[in-house]
């Protein structure tokens, strides 16, 4: 055990001559830099290739924005996180006092600070934060653009059921077709036509719920006596779930329903049929 002690007694060497110390220093720097490089590359690759695979297919730009943000932020954070891990790991591997139960014979190098290191750290982290902020604000403001003639959907949270209403309105479908809804449609599932911008007006009949149409990547609370609004344009055919993201009491876990994004023609057919049939039964026809 104690034979290991020789291995890391750098500080003894460092007393011998300043050049030795300098050499030693650059040896440590090289070792750490190598670790850093490996981990950074690993982190960047994870950010680019792994994170999108962890998240579901999104049905709207807002959702893809969230995925992209995770990718970009992982890539940006990777070098910083890798540096911290590299130094910690290097200290653990190479400057550890090996006879772990015995007291180290010599103290470490009394570095009380380093203006260069601290300054660089501060500047780099500030720049990164500025970037994060810039990224977030750009994305966020792009999401705030409201389409003039979007489809209005009223969303109501109840303990423990969602219900939806498409009020009477004229809907502009793809290619300047328009669909006139003469009588409000009430539904227990969220049925929406593809590529039509939607404005959700969200409220609650009792306590606070969280309206979370998962794969749209948008979310807003349903508050009693208040209406909150979110927008999204579903652009993919298929189904996903709408959940409640705010603890709302006894059956919160069961407060979820299905969303169906269907083609224009299916949607039209469904509305024409009085909007009572399960939309799923029409999809086969619509697709055919």
């Amino acid at each position, binding site marked *: 055990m104690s034979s290991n002690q020789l291995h890391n007694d750098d500080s003894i060497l460092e007393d011998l001559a300043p050049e030795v110390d300098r050499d030693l220093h650059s040896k440590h720097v090289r070792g750490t830099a190598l670790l850093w490089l490996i981990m950074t590359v690993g982190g960047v690759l994870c950010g680019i290739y792994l994170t999108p695979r962890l998240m579901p297919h999104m049905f709207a730009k807002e959702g893809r924005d969230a995925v992209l943000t995770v990718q970009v932020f992982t890539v940006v954070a990777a070098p910083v996180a890798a540096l911290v891990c590299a130094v910690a790991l290097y200290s653990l591997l190479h400057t550890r006092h090996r006879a772990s139960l015995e007291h180290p014979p010599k103290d470490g190098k009394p570095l009380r600070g380093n203006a260069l290191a601290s300054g660089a750290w501060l500047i780099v982290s500030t720049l990164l934060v500025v970037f994060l902020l810039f990224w977030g604000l750009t994305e966020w403001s792009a999401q705030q653009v409201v389409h003039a003639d979007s489809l209005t959907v009223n969303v109501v949270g*109840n303990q423990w*059921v969602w*219900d939806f209403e498409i009020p009477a309105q004229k809907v502009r479908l793809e290619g300047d077709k328009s669909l006139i809804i003469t009588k409000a449609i*009430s539904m227990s599932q969220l049925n929406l036509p593809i590529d039509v911008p939607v404005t959700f007006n969200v409220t609650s009949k*009792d306590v606070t719920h969280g309206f979370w149409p998962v794969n749209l990547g948008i979310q807003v609370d349903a508050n009693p006596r208040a209406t909150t609004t979110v927008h999204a344009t579903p652009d993919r055919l298929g*189904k996903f779930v709408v959940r409640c993201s705010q603890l709302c009491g*006894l*059956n919160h876990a*069961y407060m979820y329903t299905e969303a169906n994004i269907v083609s224009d023609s299916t949607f039209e057919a469904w509305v024409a049929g009085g909007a*009572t049939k399960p939309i799923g039964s029409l999809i086969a026809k619509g697709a055919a």
Partner: protein
Amino acid sequence: MRRLVGAGGALLLATVVIAAIGVGFSAQSYSAPIPVLKATPVGTDGTCGKQAPRVHLAIGAYPDSSGVDDQGNAVHPGGNPDWPAFGPSNEYSVPAGSCVTMTVTQYDSGELLNNAYFGKVAGTIGNKIHIESSGTNVSHCAEEPGAPATFAGDVTELQPCEIGHTFTMRPLPGVSPGFFLNVPLPVAGNYSGENVGNTKDFPHQTVTFSFLAGPKGSYSWNCEFPCGHGVASFGAVMGAYGYMSGYLHVI
């Protein structure tokens, strides 16, 4: 070695203690052990629009959970005298793919629904329910002394002022997500709570409906009529598991 035994012993002790507490929690989860009401097929017919095994479930919605029903069974063992409850159980089981005909006898009064949406029938065969009224039932729809709430036949929607409870059911996450069942149960007796009781001696409404049980899995039901205290009248009985909520297990 001694340390190994000591650490192992500590682990064992902790496991026992935690498991004991867990069993305690699990036991108090259901304020009283209410047996599951199990329905068995009584033949095969086409009630649900296609040939399917037929099962019946009969339950009641009672004004007093601490009382007994017509058969002398406790509505909700250990129930609270101020609280209504569904009985004789809040958990039901039916075979997968069967056609379930439910009869809910409604003995309780009502006030006003939070959301008219729950007055609409959804998810039953034909999107309708069948109601037979008995005795004098008075709704909230007019000023004192109220309007009669008497039905005899099929109904697809009730006014918010005509409702005493609802039987609203959706699947647990991951189980046939498209399913949603909502059955409004009309008010019995007087909406202000007079002339109500747990037995057929009092006015009651008998509601019958059928639905097709999907594939295996559990469904969670609860009442959407605000019959508790506090905010939105969804506190107390509405937040306590087992009175106005439960499961349907499709097995």
